[in-house]
Structures are given as structure tokens and as C-alpha cells.
């Protein structure tokens, strides 16, 4: 399969990249290329210009005197998975990065690219040359083939790293042609599968900032896939649990579920439920059940809603158990 023709620009700084994105109207930003290039090969988009961030310098993870962890959005997923700083300060992110796709893709794909990926759907992500059907919403049409009679797009946002960063309360730095701004990670997502990322056309994610976590905490990440590897998640979940000094009373929890709708979703009921409770098996099972309540679950990639609900329950239990064990193991 061949890529369509395009021209390439190689900015040296994020500011230059932002200016180019503004000047070159039909342009796309590319870092790893593992998400954009397959779409281009399928003919789903054919930008005139590619603004390539490859070649620009990647900074190492940095810990500020206040204990904040600052990550370059251009870091590869392998680098995130193996970085000692990230493993120590944000093990949840390192775990999640290690579960993305395959080693080859983790070597190429970047943190920023993973966060800013397009939503996916079984109908949309393929070649459409020989499909004599009206286009779907994502291709400019007015129907959804995946949820028949659907009056909007139901594509699913598949990032594994976004739920982890939601749980870590991360913020992101954005550079645009108008300057720099910092937003909380959840504001990056629009809740609209047609345009999942809230960035303006001339903006790029440059840094990810993870605040310091005081106290005793543990985290867990679980991802359900049919084959085990080389797959987007059926459902994924990140869990961050803080305990009192006794190591088993939950002080607070942050739970985020991804890959079941057009954006990563927090589970506020389950988080409140866990507060002040003893983290026993029974409580974890009850919390796992609670996570599925009020969760918007879109059947996708051949999985039914009921199946995904059951998967989410079991994955939630795994992640919560791992998080609890991490706290006990950490002492």
C-alpha cells in the first residue's frame, strides 16, 4: 500500500511547527506516524503538507524541585515504559505505555500522538474504494453503519495512555501560533467522536505535567484485548488509589475507563464509594460493579455492550487489586 503524495516540512521548534500549521492550511502534524500513515494509506485523509516533528530534539523526563514530573510529548512509548524516572514517579503511565500495540509500534509512536489520536470504528478504519455505500458521518455523510439508525458518529477513542494520565491528574502544555497555554488533560477531549481532540488547527501538545503525589498510593492498569497483543483495547482502565497511613483504608481514588466511548470516562460513583473504605476483596468487587454503573458503553469492534460491561467489571477488579497490592508491596 502506498502513501498519497504530500510535501514535508521539518520545523525545529514547536513554535515554528505551530506557525507552519497555521500557514499550511491542508496540513497534518506527524510524530511517530503509526496512527496517521495507516489512515493515509487507506485514503481516509490526504493532507497536502506533513509537518514532521521527527528530527527535533526530545528532552529527557525532568523532575522539578516541587516534585512535578515533566515529559516531552515526543517521547516514544518504549522510552516512557523504560524510563526510571517515570517508573518511580508515575508507574501507572509506564505500565500503560508498555501495553500499547506492539514493540515496533511503541518504538515509533509517541506520547503526544497517543493522546491526540483519532477515534476509530470497524467501518471507518479501512479502505473504502470498493464499498458502494453512502459515506458515514466520519467521511462526511449522514449515517452510522456501526450503530444502525444512529443519528451521530459512534467511533471510539482508543488511547491507553489517556486513562492513565486522567488518573494521575496530569496537565498538558499546548503551543499554538497565539502562544502557550496549559490545560488539564480532560479538557483535551471534546466528547465528540467526529472531532475528539479540542486542539485548534494550529496547536500542538508539547509537554505533559504530572503533579507530585503525596502519601501512600498505588496504581493499576488493565486492558482487555481478544488476542493479548497488537490490538486496540476492547476496554482499558487506569486506577490510582491513595490510602491512609494504615495502608488499607482508602483516602481517595481516581478511576478512568477508556476505549468504550468517544472519550475517556471517570467513574465518580465508584471513586466516592471507595473513599474511607477498607480495601478488602469484597469492597473491590463492589467497586468494580459500581464502575460499570452510569458508564457510557458503546458496543464496538464486534463486542456487545453486555460483553464489554462484564469485561470492564473483571478488568476493574484486576486493576484495583493490582493497585492495592502495589501499596502493600511498596512498604
Amino acid at each position, binding site marked *: *500500500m*502506498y*502513501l*498519497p*503524495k*504530500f*510535501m*514535508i*516540512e*521539518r520545523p525545529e521548534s514547536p513554535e515554528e511547527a505551530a506557525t507552519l500549521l497555521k500557514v*499550511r492550511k491542508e496540513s497534518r502534524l506527524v510524530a511517530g*506516524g*503509526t496512527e496517521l*500513515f*495507516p489512515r493515509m*494509506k*487507506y485514503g481516509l485523509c490526504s493532507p497536502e*503538507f*506533513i509537518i*514532521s516533528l*521527527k*528530527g527535533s530534539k526530545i528532552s529527557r523526563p525532568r523532575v522539578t524541585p516541587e516534585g512535578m514530573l515533566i515529559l516531552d510529548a515526543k517521547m516514544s512509548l*518504549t522510552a516512557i515504559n523504560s524510563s526510571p524516572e517515570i517508573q518511580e514517579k508515575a508507574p501507572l503511565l509506564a505500565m500503560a505505555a508498555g501495553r500499547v*500495540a*506492539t*514493540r*515496533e*509500534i511503541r*518504538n*515509533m509512536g509517541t506520547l503526544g500522538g497517543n493522546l491526540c489520536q483519532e477515534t476509530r470504528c470497524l467501518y471507518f478504519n479501512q479502505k473504502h474504494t470498493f464499498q458502494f455505500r453512502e459515506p458515514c458521518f466520519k467521511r462526511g455523510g449522514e449515517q452510522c453503519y456501526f450503530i444502525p439508525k444512529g443519528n451521530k458518529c459512534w467511533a471510539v477513542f482508543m488511547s491507553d495512555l489517556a486513562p492513565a494520565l486522567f488518573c494521575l491528574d496530569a496537565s498538558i502544555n499546548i503551543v499554538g501560533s497565539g502562544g502557550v497555554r496549559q490545560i488539564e488533560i480532560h479538557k483535551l477531549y471534546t466528547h465528540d467522536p467526529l472531532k475528539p481532540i479540542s486542539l485548534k488547527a494550529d496547536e500542538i501538545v508539547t509537554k505533559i505535567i504530572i503533579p507530585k503525589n503525596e502519601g501512600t498510593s498505588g496504581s493499576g492498569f488493565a486492558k482487555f484485548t481478544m488476542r*493479548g*497483543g*497488537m490490538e486496540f483495547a476492547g476496554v482499558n482502565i487506569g486506577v490510582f488509589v491513595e490510602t491512609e497511613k494504615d495502608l488499607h483504608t482508602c483516602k481517595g481514588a481516581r478511576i478512568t475507563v477508556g476505549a468504550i466511548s468517544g472519550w475517556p470516562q471517570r467513574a465518580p460513583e465508584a471513586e466516592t464509594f471507595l473513599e474511607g473504605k477498607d480495601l478488602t476483596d469484597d469492597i473491590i468487587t463492589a467497586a468494580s460493579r459500581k464502575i460499570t454503573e452510569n458508564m457510557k458503553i458503546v458496543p464496538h469492534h464486534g463486542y456487545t455492550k453486555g460483553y464489554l460491561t462484564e469485561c470492564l467489571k473483571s478488568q476493574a477488579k484486576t486493576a484495583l487489586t493490582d493497585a492495592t497490592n502495589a501499596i502493600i508491596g511498596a512498604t
Partner: protein
Amino acid sequence: MSTNQKQLLELSINGESYELAVACQETLLEVLRNRLGLTGTKEGCGTGECGSCTVLLEGEPVLACLLLALDCENKQIETIEGQSLEGRMTPVQEAFLEKGAVQCGFCTPGMVMASTALLKRNPDPNEEDIMESLEGHLCRCTGYNKIMESVQHAAKSYPEKS
């Protein structure tokens, strides 16, 4: 600089230097196979799902089908053609042959490259490490068991271990 003209590029593949003019949209896979005749690297899906186009870029496995040739300048590229030295196969290749891990052979170059990178990184991998390294490689013939056995066998005779 932006241009739709071809750009002159110097590629270092298997220790040899190649100078050629490539278009922006040409992938490393296209350059290897169509321009340089290095057809050992295979194109399976072309969209990063099968692993048959795996080559080593600076010693790390990457997918040549999703890598622009222009992004490979000044980097060491290793393909399956560079694996055998003076007509002798590497321990990984020997092991694949000995253990019967090759049937149709289409996935083999990618599998060998990923296994070679794994053994360089970790000369004593356990089953989980091997599975993690080969999870992106599809094989429709062998059922994977023979491939797993081969990598374990190669690890025993891997030169850096002795």
C-alpha cells in the same frame, strides 16, 4: 524547507552507504524493496499490523511500512540481508531452520529481526519476554510454538552470552 521534488538522501543499510533521490511519501519499505532490490523485507499489510516489514533502526525494531525514508537519514538500518555474515547464518537464523520455525517464510524476516533485537537487549529472555517482542508478528503457518522454541534455542547459543 518544503518541496514536492525528490530529495537526495544517504542511507546506511547493513553497513553500506546508498545515495538516492526519494520522494517525500516514499516509505523505507518501498525504498528497500523497489529501489535497492533488498526484497528480504516483506510487505504484509502495509499498515503496521503484521510485522513482516520489521527492520532495525539504530538497533531497535521498527516497521518499515510506516517509516518515511527521509526520516532514516544518518541512522543505521539493518535488514535481513545483513544478518548472514560471509554466507553463514546467525544463531537466530540457524535456530529457526533447526526447529522448523519456517514454513511459507513470509513472516520469517520480520520475526528474525525482532528476535535478534530481543537477544541483543536481553540475551536470556523468558517466555513472556519473547511473547512481548513477537506480539506484533503474525504467522499463519507455524502456530508460533516452533518460533518460540527457536528463539529460546537461539538464546542458548547467543554469542554475547558466552
